[in-house]
């Protein structure tokens, strides 16, 4: 299994699936999925296994090594994100396959949908293993462009407006990033992230470049106040699309900020780390308070993403103050558990919306027994979002609170705890509906009849949501393997960047 080319295969499988999906035919989607999802999982296992065996490695694509060629760079963090991608996108694919909204599309639109779906997947996989600043720009734009078109598959003009806004702001982010990369290239003569770290000499041009890169990536990560594009886009996209956008595409912006600020930019000062932490804390409060105010379930979940992304940014001040291992482990475990929980929440919300034709909270209560499995998935995911023990979210926040206390920065711990309480409020607003007995449900009766006007939801879509919710809770029980993986190739302490070139 030890073979560096698994990383390239993990990228190639979804890209080939994107092409194959365009083949006309009734069974194309099923056939492509039957090959692509296990294939991507297998390749990801290969990558994870290789990282366990040989540690951080580079794969020279096509045999052309850096600096002439473009290397893939794989460490524990990249392998963990690849694994997250394969699990979340794989289970969400099952949901899309059975989703009545997707099945109702004309066949040609369906094949376009699937092709774009795998494009997002492939672009993210390429981004996670990319060690090259410009390659990252291309993958960012690929993921955004495919994601934008997928959002426009949602219902009505709202989805069109949301998708255009997402495209304009997303492209602004990517161009800000590439302008920064251009200046970095001018200052160092390289695009390789490791070489960049070795050659970077702080100066005015580098500071401007770092600012442009950071703003560009913060837009992609929906860091407050650059989050305004997120709730409409994630709130109006088809369920599966909302799930991968919220679980994975937003995390990609954070992932790249970690790559830069705990990599080449680490010497540019702790002030930026504190600033990112403050914006993250504002995001936690702002996103949670807005989530509490929402009347539509999908918008509630979308604002919750703004809040949960805010937590992740506490990594930067915690790591800069020396709470390194704890903060690193905690923040990335939170990425894993939030991504699975958020995907589950969006899929569950999508099932309710599909069945009832609306996701207004007041309406859901009227037929709650019909949605009880979806509400169960939502509740399990909510336990992770709140950070209830023994979920993955609990352990992640525990690690981050410990890091905050150990470095004497209790205010970050306060943010984590207050954010958890606010999450409890908005999760409770939804879960409560599951206990509202509707008038037509006699107490104790087995299997009340389906209220009129509700569409049945395929079991597969419910199982996909439940599966993701169980993974997010299960991360609290089986956290040792992912934590061990995340620490392979972890930047040792501020000041020491990625592994040097072999």
């Amino acid at each position, binding site marked *: 299994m030890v073979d560096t080319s698994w990383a390239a295969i993990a990228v190639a499988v979804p890209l080939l699936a994107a092409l194959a999906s365009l083949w006309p035919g009734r069974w194309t989607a099923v056939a492509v999925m039957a090959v692509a999802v296990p294939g991507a999982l297998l390749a990801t296992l290969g990558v994870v296994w290789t990282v366990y065996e040989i540690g951080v490695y580079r794969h020279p694509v096509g045999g052309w090594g850096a600096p002439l060629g473009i290397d893939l760079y794989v460490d524990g963090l990249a392998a963990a994100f690849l694994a997250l991608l394969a699990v979340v996108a794989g289970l969400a694919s099952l949901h899309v396959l059975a989703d009545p909204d997707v099945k109702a599309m004309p066949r040609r639109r369906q094949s376009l949908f699937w092709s774009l779906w795998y494009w997002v997947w492939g672009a993210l996989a390429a981004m996670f293993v990319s060690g090259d600043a410009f390659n990252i720009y291309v993958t960012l*734009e690929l993921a955004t462009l495919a994601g934008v078109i997928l959002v426009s598959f949602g219902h009505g*003009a709202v989805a069109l*407006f949301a998708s255009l806004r997402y495209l304009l702001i997303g492209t602004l982010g990517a161009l800000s990033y590439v302008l920064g990369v*251009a200046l970095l290239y*001018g200052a160092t003569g390289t*695009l390789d992230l490791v070489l960049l770290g070795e050659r970077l000499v702080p100066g005015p041009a580098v500071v401007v470049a770092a600012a442009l890169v950071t703003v560009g990536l913060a837009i992609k990560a929906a860091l407050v106040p650059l989050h305004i594009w997120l709730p409409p886009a994630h709130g109006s996209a088809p369920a599966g699309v909302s799930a991968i956008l919220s679980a994975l595409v937003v995390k990609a912006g954070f992932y790249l900020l970690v790559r830069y600020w705990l990599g080449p930019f680490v010497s540019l000062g702790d002030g930026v780390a504190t600033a990112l932490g403050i914006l993250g804390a504002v995001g936690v409060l702002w996103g949670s308070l807005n989530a509490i105010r929402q009347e539509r379930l999908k918008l509630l979940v979308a604002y919750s993403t703004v809040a949960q992304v805010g937590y992740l940014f506490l990594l930067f001040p915690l790591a800069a103050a020396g709470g390194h291992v704890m903060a690193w482990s905690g923040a990335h475990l939170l990425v894993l558990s939030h991504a699975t929980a958020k995907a589950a929440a969006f899929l569950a919300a999508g099932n309710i919306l599909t069945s009832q034709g609306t996701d207004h909270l007041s309406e859901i209560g009227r037929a709650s027994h019909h949605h009880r499995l979806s509400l169960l998935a939502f509740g399990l995911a909510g336990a992770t979002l709140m950070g209830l023990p023994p979920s993955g979210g609990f352990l992640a926040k525990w690690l981050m609170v410990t890091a905050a206390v150990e470095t004497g920065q209790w205010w970050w711990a306060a943010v984590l705890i207050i954010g958890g309480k606010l999450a409890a409020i908005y999760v409770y607003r939804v879960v409560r509906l599951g206990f509202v007995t509707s008038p037509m449900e006699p107490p104790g009766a087995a299997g009340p009849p389906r209220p009129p006007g509700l569409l049945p939801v395929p079991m597969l879509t419910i199982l996909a949501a439940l599966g993701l919710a169980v993974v997010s809770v299960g991360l609290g029980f089986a956290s040792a393997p992912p934590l061990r993986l995340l620490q392979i190739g972890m930047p040792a302490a501020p000041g020491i960047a990625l592994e040097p070139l072999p």
Partner: protein
Amino acid sequence: MDQADIYILAGMALFAIALHALAARRHLVRKVLAINILGGGCFLVLIAVARRAPGPVADPVPHAMVLTGIVVAVSVTAVALILVRRIRSATGRTDFPEDNRDDRV
């Protein structure tokens, strides 16, 4: 300050102007044009960076980046224009409903 520096500053100025247009202009096509000019600013900076390389010939790597960037910009523009057209045919609007004043030409 040599010629390349002037081009780099000009590229960044272009970026700033387009950023203003993207925020201030309400008509959706103008916003799409602003995105293209943003890209133009980036490309100008990249080409100036290429000229700065030591030796008689320009550095080819930024040129390759500009070519890739143009392909991305064309794709983004195509998708954006299609969305603008679909918004117009679905709602009759050429601006975001949140910006409820008419575009000032």
